[in-house]
């Protein structure tokens, strides 16, 4: 099914009008991070949420707002407005957790993983007075905590990917949590895909099969951070590779190789 075909199904998804198998297919597809379908999903949500705009608005009585402001006033006493304290209450526990994670080592971890742990600690300790940076940091910290949790798992394997001639400045790694069967792809230094294209990650088995994992894009720094479920019955893997493909992805590689990493 193409993303264009999914576009109209998404309105039924939002309205809860799909059967279980259709709903699961869409959910898995969205979980792979398809940017086209994510945007279409937001559009479908907006259409669904627009239905009540046909109603005549009814302003609440003034006492409703008064009671509400009193209620949040009580709550506010327990949550100081101080930005510094808000930062303290959120980031310090996370920094402690990240700090604890630093001292956990594992025989199979490489210096690159240690570098990622240091980055997780550094992120946890970065402070900012801007609301936007705080939100961004909180989101990023949460991701780093997840990463550290993956790295602490004994069955974690690291796959390093190198850029091909088309991505000379790029490097990437995949943190493979074999316990949960998930890959976390982290890239840096990639150029943006050409217009009308996206990047697609592939599982390449020892039998030579190329199985699509996910499509993704990179930010202005050439970074991507994606989670992917490894199919349980995929068999032994030989390579992880990234190609550039048409938007929405393709079932078999057609584009140019961007990154490749051997799986030992």
């Amino acid at each position, binding site marked *: 099914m193409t993303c264009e075909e999914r576009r109209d199904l998404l309105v039924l998804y939002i309205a809860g009008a799909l059967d279980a198998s259709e709903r699961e297919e869409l959910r898995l597809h969205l979980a792979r991070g398809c940017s086209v379908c994510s945007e279409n999903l937001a*559009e479908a*949500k*907006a*259409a669904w*949420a627009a*239905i009540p*705009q046909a*109603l005549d608005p009814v302003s609440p009585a003034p006492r409703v707002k008064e009671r509400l402001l009193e209620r*949040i006033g009580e709550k506010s006493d327990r949550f100081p407005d101080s930005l510094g304290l808000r930062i303290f209450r959120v980031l310090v526990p996370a920094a402690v957790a990240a700090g604890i994670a630093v001292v956990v080592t594992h025989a199979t971890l490489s210096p690159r993983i240690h570098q990622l742990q240091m980055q997780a600690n550094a992120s946890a300790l970065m402070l900012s007075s801007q609301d936007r940076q705080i939100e961004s940091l909180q989101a990023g910290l949460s991701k780093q905590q997840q990463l550290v949790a993956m790295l602490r798992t004994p069955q974690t394997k690291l796959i390093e990917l190198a850029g091909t001639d088309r991505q000379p400045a790029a490097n990437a790694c995949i943190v493979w949590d074999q316990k949960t069967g998930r890959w976390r792809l982290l890239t840096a230094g990639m150029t943006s895909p050409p217009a009308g294209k996206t990047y697609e990650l592939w599982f390449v088995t020892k039998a030579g099969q190329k199985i699509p994992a996910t499509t993704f894009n990179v930010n202005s720094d050439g970074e991507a951070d994606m989670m992917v479920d490894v199919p349980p019955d995929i068999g032994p893997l030989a390579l992880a590779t990234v190609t550039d493909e048409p938007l929405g992805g393709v079932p078999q590689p057609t584009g140019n190789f961007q990154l490749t990493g051997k799986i030992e």
Partner: protein
Amino acid sequence: MAGGRPVSPDDLFLMRGIAAGDRKAFSILFDRHSPMLLSICRRILKDAGSAEDILMDVFFEVWTRADRYDASRGTPLTYLVTLTRSRAIDRQRSVASHPPESSFSPDNSTQTSPQADPLQIANANEQGQIVRAALAGLDTQQRQVLECAFYEGLSHSEIAEKLQKPLGTVKTYIRQGLIRLRDSLRSR
């Protein structure tokens, strides 16, 4: 862009302010969107008192759990409408076996908000006209199915049973109605 109109930077700015504990931002957001959200509650619950309770619960949650809003998943208005509908339907189901004692009484509410920004009122009116025009293009049965789905929280099979229609017809009506709305909003 989702919904066919630019996301108001004001709403995003207000949500960030609320997350930082800005009561003024919260007050503005309440004035701006409480009329529409209250109309949803009244439409679902058919009881003014319960509708006001849900409205307060929704905005209290907006204040105390501002971290739950994720801008990547949709606009603040979509978030507010979704949250309000969910809470109102939950309340409606929990009191389904205990009908409210009070009848529907709009005597404490007003049709205009003295606090809301006039520009926002104009924008809301314009948006309402687009939505009404899009829904008016559906036939009565299609609109009825869509309203059952939204305001009563019925699944498509429950709607089919209630309206004595085939399941496929119900899905088609929902799909047609929402696609029509989606495309109308997108074309702005």
